[in-house]
């Protein structure tokens, strides 16, 4: 088996197409995980135990089952009850929901780190609960958790090849179809690895920067 550069250039445009979808799925999935994770964290603090318990149970359930199974469920089982989603949408929901249960824990820790005195000061200033969240608590809670969130988003990026199982034409899926039709695996699979490695290395540098910028917030 020999490395064929000509084949590499030939398949590059297709792989780049797939890579675009990979990035798109990661960005959209991260957005879902970021927003939904916050909603879960707030719901789990609800004084209504029915809400906090139910949300807590659902989170345990999602974390306790494999992402691949969840993706199959969303894409292949939900149509049986009439919910038909395009592959990318199903993938973004699946991966976003899965990671939301993890980001929720990051938010929870960040929110609990805001001293009780801040809530009390907000109350004494006659802010509504909503205003206290938006103007007092979250602006203090979020910056220290940015590195931990970014860490999950990098992990999520590396899990996007799972989306190939539900026919999303992301990088891995494109590489597989190239490999299958040409009977050559070494170039497409190596390139998939290189693409992921390149992004991961850049992300790690970015993460270090975020940690220095945000991890320590002095009072």
């Amino acid at each position, binding site marked *: 088996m020999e490395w064929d550069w000509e084949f590499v250039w030939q398949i590059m445009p297709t792989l780049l197409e797939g890579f675009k979808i990979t990035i798109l799925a990661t960005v959209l999935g991260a957005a879902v995980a970021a927003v939904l994770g916050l909603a879960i964290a707030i719901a789990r603090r609800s004084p209504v135990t029915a809400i906090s318990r139910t949300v807590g149970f659902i989170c345990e359930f999602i974390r306790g089952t494999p992402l691949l199974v969840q993706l199959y469920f969303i894409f292949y089982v939900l149509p049986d009850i009439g919910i038909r989603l395009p592959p990318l949408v199903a993938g973004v929901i699946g991966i976003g929901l899965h990671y939301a249960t993890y980001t929720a824990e990051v938010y929870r820790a960040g929110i609990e780190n805001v001293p009780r005195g801040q809530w009390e000061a907000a109350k004494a*200033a006659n802010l509504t609960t909503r205003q206290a969240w938006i*103007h007092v608590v979250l602006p*203090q809670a979020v910056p220290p958790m940015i590195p931990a969130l970014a860490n999950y988003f990098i992990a999520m990026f590396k899990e996007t090849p799972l989306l190939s199982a539900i026919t999303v034409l992301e990088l891995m899926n494109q590489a597989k179809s190239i490999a299958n039709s040409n009977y050559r695996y070494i170039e497409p699979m190596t390139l998939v690895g290189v693409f992921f490695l390149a992004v991961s290395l850049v992300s790690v540098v970015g993460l270090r920067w975020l940690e220095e910028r945000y991890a320590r917030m002095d009072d």
Partner: protein
Amino acid sequence: MASPIIRIDNIVKRYGPLTVLDGLSMDVMPGEKLALIGPSGSGKTTILRILMTLETISGGHIEVDGEQLYHMKKGADLAPADEAHLHRMRKKIGMVFQHFNLFPHKCVLDNVTLAPILTQGVKKADAEKRAMELLDMVGMADKAKSVPAQLSGGQKQRVAIARALALSPKIMLFDEVTSALDPELVEEVLNVMKRLAAETDMTMLLVTHEMGFASDFADRVLFFDRGKIVEEGRPQEIFRNPRQERTQTFLRKIIAAGHRV
């Protein structure tokens, strides 16, 4: 004679098996300056926190400015207050905390303007103008653009006073506002409060261990012990001639601990 601005009627506060306030009743007249003294755990801070609705009550009634604080009228009966009622009642009351509780992510000026802009719909420019006047009054105008982390404890507390004043509450609660300060920084905060007491007709309730200050500041001193008011009177009476033995013991201990009276 005017009617009381605060009527506290038989308030009970329990934490599990612990009774912190045991049927506390007291009235506060409009414009009155009140000092609440007593050993720690005597319930003096708790009653302030209850007035600010930071705690719930286990029993009793409180009337603030003619309205029930923890209850609202429901037909002929009284029902527990909902959040909207509490929110409306909080407008009347402001509080300064022992540990300042400034918003660390906002500069001094924004700390003072945040609540007026959000809760009273004041325009930003107007809120800032008023905030600068208040910061000037507490001697912090030159630090308007600093963040709390750059300030000393005394400076933080003066900003916190300006922040509470910005909402123009009828009643101000001061909870051990100098207890977390280094000794050399206590004076600057007390001076601000003395000026405030002299210049405004706001009703003020002060929990303190600074007996000398309580004596200068207050029209009336209440001595708390074990969730009840044991003795009350004008500062001279309480500090010079305490009648109750528990008051005498407490004041002796405070003097022995080096506090000025």
